């Protein structure tokens, strides 16, 4: 089992996930599309995962760019 810690950004759709990944990438933050963890939502979709250490920067990029999301959560 990997013990790394992450944060995820929940979004409306895969399209939104890709836009978030794209914008984070342009700001030097590695982001990956993963299935939404079940504890966060019952939706079958994807969300964007970043390393926990990038959470603060991620939050500021998201608010600076005004991208629509459904929140940023630790997992």
């Amino acid at each position, binding site marked *: 089992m990997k013990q790394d810690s992450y944060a995820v950004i929940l979004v*409306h*759709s*895969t*399209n*939104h*996930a*890709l*836009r978030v990944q*794209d914008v984070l990438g342009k700001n030097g933050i590695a982001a990956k*599309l*993963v*299935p*939404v963890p079940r504890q966060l939502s*019952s*939706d*079958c*979709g*994807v969300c964007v995962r970043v390393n926990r250490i990038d959470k603060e920067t991620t939050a500021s990029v998201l608010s600076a760019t005004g991208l*629509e999301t459904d929140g940023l959560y630790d997992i």
Partner: protein
Amino acid sequence: MIYFDNAATSWPKPPCVTEAMVRFMTDIGANPGRAAHRPANRAAGIVYDARKAAAELFHLSDPLRVVFTCNVTEALNCVINGMLHPGDHVITGGMEHNAMMRPLRRTGETGVEVTVVPCTAEGGLDVSSIVNALRPSTALIALNHASNVVGTLLPIAEIGRIARANNTLLLVDTAQTAGAVPVDMEADCIDLCAFTGHKSLYGPTGTGGLVIGERVELSRLAPLKRGGTGSRSEQELQPDFLPDKYESGTLNVVGLAGLEAGIRWVMNRGIHAIRDHEMNLTSKLIEGLSGIPGVTLYGGSDARRRIPAVSFNIEGMEPSEAGLRLDEEYSLMCRVGLHCSPAAHRTIGTFPRGTIRFGMGVFNTLAEVDTAVQAVACLAREKG
């Protein structure tokens, strides 16, 4: 063989377009947005890259404002059927393709008021006639950017500014111009930009889209169809956000892989460089054809004000006969008849006979234009 039917669909396609499609089919294949495994994410990434390419092409910053459809016809139907209600007024022009005219005429039957502003015999439009047609109830101005029959470009940016000043929206059918002429939704004040992938964007058939500008209220634009979007699966109501609201059902991912490659290819080559080449072809063709006795040309003669679709007739010869003979005796492929645009042919005075249309593209050469002019001269001489 000379392929002069690019106004119907472009051919050949740049090799990168076919390669991108083969790559998707052999290496990825998955459904975008219906799962989160790696191939599904790669498929979704391909669709997203195509959105980015289209957004860049039309100068819009947000890729999610690009909604994919199967062609421009579907994009036009989406707006016309989704936005106009009985009592609304819509303005269109006398050079429209049936992709625009038929859905508009249908809304006319349901109580939408449709004004068709006449165009000149060359296919041009006097902007003041748009101004004069405006009413308080005008919800939409809907026009093509260039005629598929005579190639005449309409003054879209001027009309867009009029739409803004009068608090109405502008829908543009860029079937003939996207990729061949710069289209800038910001500078040209276009609110709804409908495009097709298989003409001057050099993508495959079955691709196209609608780019939705920020002035459009989504709550006032109903989707053409509803269904699975891969998002909000717990809900039985259609999502209300872009692009999902207007993209139900699995997309044509293999086609969009090709479309992205086509748009990138066009942008790398440079729309201005493509435009210069196509204007040279057009000037040479017009010059050549106008020197042949018995040939009547339609549309303006200034290549800067038109795209490389050139219509003409040969005295004493039906377009259908000319088309068959050009194909069989000269290996020259073109399209004859009414080009799905009865309104345009009425405007230029060629209804119901139609015309012979040479539609050139980026891969055509000046030498091919010479050969084509000689072929037409031979046919005209026989009849002369």
